[in-house]
């Protein structure tokens, strides 16, 4: 079974440029998460989708970040414009939520460097 797929794996951009990350979750998983992992830190949740609905976006900086999950499968996370402080690894995860404490499966991440 294929895991969570993310692309690109690496991205280098100049500040003020836009950037987008793509995630394909594990087939059949109804919940999708975007996390940001700063250097030397644990991942922090940006947004959580249940099917097509964003049920928790309280940590998403909405002035520059946006996300979508069309048809409840793939998802895209966008930053426009990027700032130096956005340099981090962006992780996508998915899970099948049918009870409490469900395992989240993580993709390899996209490492973003903003110059």
């Amino acid at each position: 079974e294929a895991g969570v797929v993310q692309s690109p794996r690496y991205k280098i951009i100049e500040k003020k440029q836009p950037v987008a990350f793509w995630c394909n979750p594990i087939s059949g998983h109804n919940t999708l998460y975007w996390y940001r992992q700063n250097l030397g830190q644990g991942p922090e949740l940006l947004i959580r989708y249940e099917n097509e609905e964003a049920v928790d976006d309280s940590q998403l900086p909405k002035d520059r970040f946006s996300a979508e999950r069309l048809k409840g499968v793939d998802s895209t996370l966008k930053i426009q414009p990027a700032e130096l402080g956005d340099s981090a690894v962006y992780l996508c995860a998915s899970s099948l939520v049918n009870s409490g404490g469900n395992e989240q499966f993580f993709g390899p991440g996209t490492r973003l460097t903003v110059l």
Partner: protein
Amino acid sequence: AQSVTQLDSQVPVFEEAPVELRCNYSSSVSVYLFWYVQYPNQGLQLLLKYLSGSTLVKGINGFEAEFNKSQTSFHLRKPSVHISDTAEYFCAVMSGFGNEKLTFGTGTRLTIIP
């Protein structure tokens, strides 16, 4: 609000020696607890989790953890480590049923010395 504290940022251990990685949490409600491992340039992989029942939880790769409610701890242990265990280990907490938000600690880098 929930939070996780991993007391050791780096732990060097000789090969075949035992190891314990410490984790303490805080939450105002019942929790689920997780340990994830992250190898270089890879995503996180679940080692084990505690949902309910026995406080001693066994996971993959010979790891185990013990949930201690009175001390609000969930320490990870392995009796004999291998070079392949070199990685970053993250403890995480999820507060109760219906809330799928994971809050992670800052991680512990385990380095195995040959």
